[in-house]
């Protein structure tokens, strides 16, 4: 019995880490622009699909992964330059609708060029499961948890310790004031899109060996990542990561102990309850507006 609980926890953490990584991408763009980028799930999908494509074209695995991440970052940069920047005076809602449109375009292009099948990527370090107190985990799960941890730590350092990171935060807080003190807002926004594409693509490549990948994988991941983001408190990277882990674990225990038929419902029920009680999310601070 105890070993099954441990198994639910491990499975939940692995899946949750990927929700968290997707959620992280949301917070990065939200923090500099105030936009919810609904193409975030597509960045994750692109990472996985490009890695599969490059690997099947004959590239060794590490090179395929690297290529996939770089390719996705370029897509993120192009997205900002070609669709977000030209409509400078648009409202946040209009920009969000643009991101939804882009997500559909990316999905369509991938479907036509890379195919509409499901694909598998080889595991990074073998498929021999590791036994752990009666439960088992794949080496890939360790990769997922470790890489998520490293990215989180790096982001924390970036946003709190570097001038560049602080400048990005300043843009979200007050665009005009940041501009007046010499921050190049346009560059920050471009960089935030590239950074979130990077985070998403890394999530996609480390996830693909475990869960398979296909052109429409981004929709559900984007949705769960967004939920993770809201649960943790919008705009807080650590909240997003923690929110992802919580949703993953909830799903896993819900499916294992109550009923697997309602797996997706548990996370959203908890999310709704939380938003009634604490609308700013678990780790979010209530907004204070000074006039």
């Amino acid at each position, binding site marked *: 019995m105890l070993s099954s609980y441990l198994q*639910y926890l491990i499975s939940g953490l692995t899946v949750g880490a990927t929700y968290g990584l997707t959620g992280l991408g949301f917070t990065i763009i939200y923090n500099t622009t105030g936009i919810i980028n609904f193409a975030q799930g597509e960045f994750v999908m692109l990472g996985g699909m490009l890695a599969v494509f490059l690997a099947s074209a004959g590239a060794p695995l590490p090179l395929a992964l690297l290529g996939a991440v770089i390719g996705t970052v370029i897509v993120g940069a192009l997205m900002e330059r070609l669709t977000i920047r030209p409509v400078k005076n648009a409202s946040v809602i209009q920009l969000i609708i643009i991101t939804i449109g882009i997500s559909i375009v990316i999905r369509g292009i991938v479907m036509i060029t890379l195919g*509409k*099948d499901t694909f598998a990527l080889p595991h990074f370090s073998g498929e021999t499961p590791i036994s752990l107190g009666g439960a088992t*985990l794949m080496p890939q799960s360790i990769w997922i948890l470790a890489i998520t941890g490293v990215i989180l730590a790096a982001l924390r350092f970036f946003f709190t310790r570097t001038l560049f990171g602080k400048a990005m935060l300043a843009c979200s807080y007050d665009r005009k004031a940041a501009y007046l003190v010499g921050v190049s807002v346009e560059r920050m926004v471009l960089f935030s899109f590239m950074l979130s594409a990077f985070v998403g693509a890394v999530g996609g490549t480390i996830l693909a060996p*475990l869960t398979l990948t296909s052109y429409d994988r981004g929709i559900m991941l984007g949705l769960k990542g967004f939920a993770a983001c809201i649960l943790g408190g919008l705009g807080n990277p650590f909240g997003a990561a923690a929110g992802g882990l919580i949703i993953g674990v909830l799903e896993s225990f819900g499916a294992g102990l109550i009923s697997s038929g309602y797996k997706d419902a548990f996370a959203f029920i908890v999310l709704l309850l939380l938003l009634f009680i604490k609308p700013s999310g678990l780790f979010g601070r209530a907004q204070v507006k000074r006039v």
Partner: protein
Amino acid sequence: MTIRCFLIALALLLIPVSAQAEEPIKIGAVFSATGPASFLGEPEKNTVIMLADQINEAGGVLGRKLEVVVYDDETDVNKCVLAVDKLLKKDRVVTVLGPSVSGNTLAVMNKFPAAKVPMLSCAAAEKIVNPLNPWVFKTPQSDRHAVTRILEHAQNEGYKNIAIITVSDGYGQAGRTVLQELVPEMGFTLMADEVYGPKDTDMTAQLTSIKGAQPDAIICWGTNPGPAVIAKNRVQLGIKTPLYMSHGVASKKFIELAGNAAEGLLLPAGRLIVADQIPDDHPQKPVVTNYIEDYESRFDQPISSFGGYAWDALMLTVKAIEMGNSADPQDIRDNLEKIEGFVGTGGIFNFSAEDHNGLDASAFEMVIIENGDWKIVE
């Protein structure tokens, strides 16, 4: 003057008659060529187009060309309903082939009695033909036949306790109903009854509770990619319990996705995917080998059972048209019910007024996956 008027009138009368004689026979098809079930719909669409070309090159049916109108429902129920409406009201087809998936078929099948046009579905669920809808037929083997074959195999192996894990779409729900009915009926105990979503990427939670129930065998009911994830998760959790799959994964894609985790899995499959292993004197041998040769040489893709469902649907329609010497929808329907001993890719069809599937459990061979390929088990 009167003669001229008479001649013009005669000519006007004759034009539509002669035009009608040369008019092609319009057959509609709606398949899930894109979307999650594209692995079903794409080979089905290819097969129908290929067959129509072949038939037309050979002179058509009753001296008329076949014109196949194919729509893609993108594995979406709403788009499927729209496509069927278009086929029935705008294109005025005499028969509809498809849809590819059970959920879509169940959503559109009640339109056919009103339109008085027959439909030959390429989806598996037994609910499509039971209770009987006089205008609806289907070509894939029923889930009841597949479950029967699996449970017979389990009986021979001496298993007593069964766990099931099914997908929450139309295909899985239909399979689950039959499993819940037949597992106790054939003397087994149902130890666990788990469900997963069609887009889920991790089923370790469900498999962990199945593991806790300690069944003798697990039956998984779903179509790609879910069962591949389940096969991988099973290896990951170190579960040694035998795993049966449904005929929904009888394509090379499944073995490719599941990799080593597919080794040793058992499933009931039509003879199409084990064509080289069936005896030469089996009546299906020439049909399936010809189809495989034609398909693989034209599309450069491996064969799957699913394209065969569309082969059967179109050829049965052609057979019914030839039998009645008429392409009238009512005649096609009546003659479909009279077809007996038709050798298709999915089995030997014997339709009747009570049976619109026309197959039985003998349409399946039990196969095991060994060295990345199918092998018939005795």
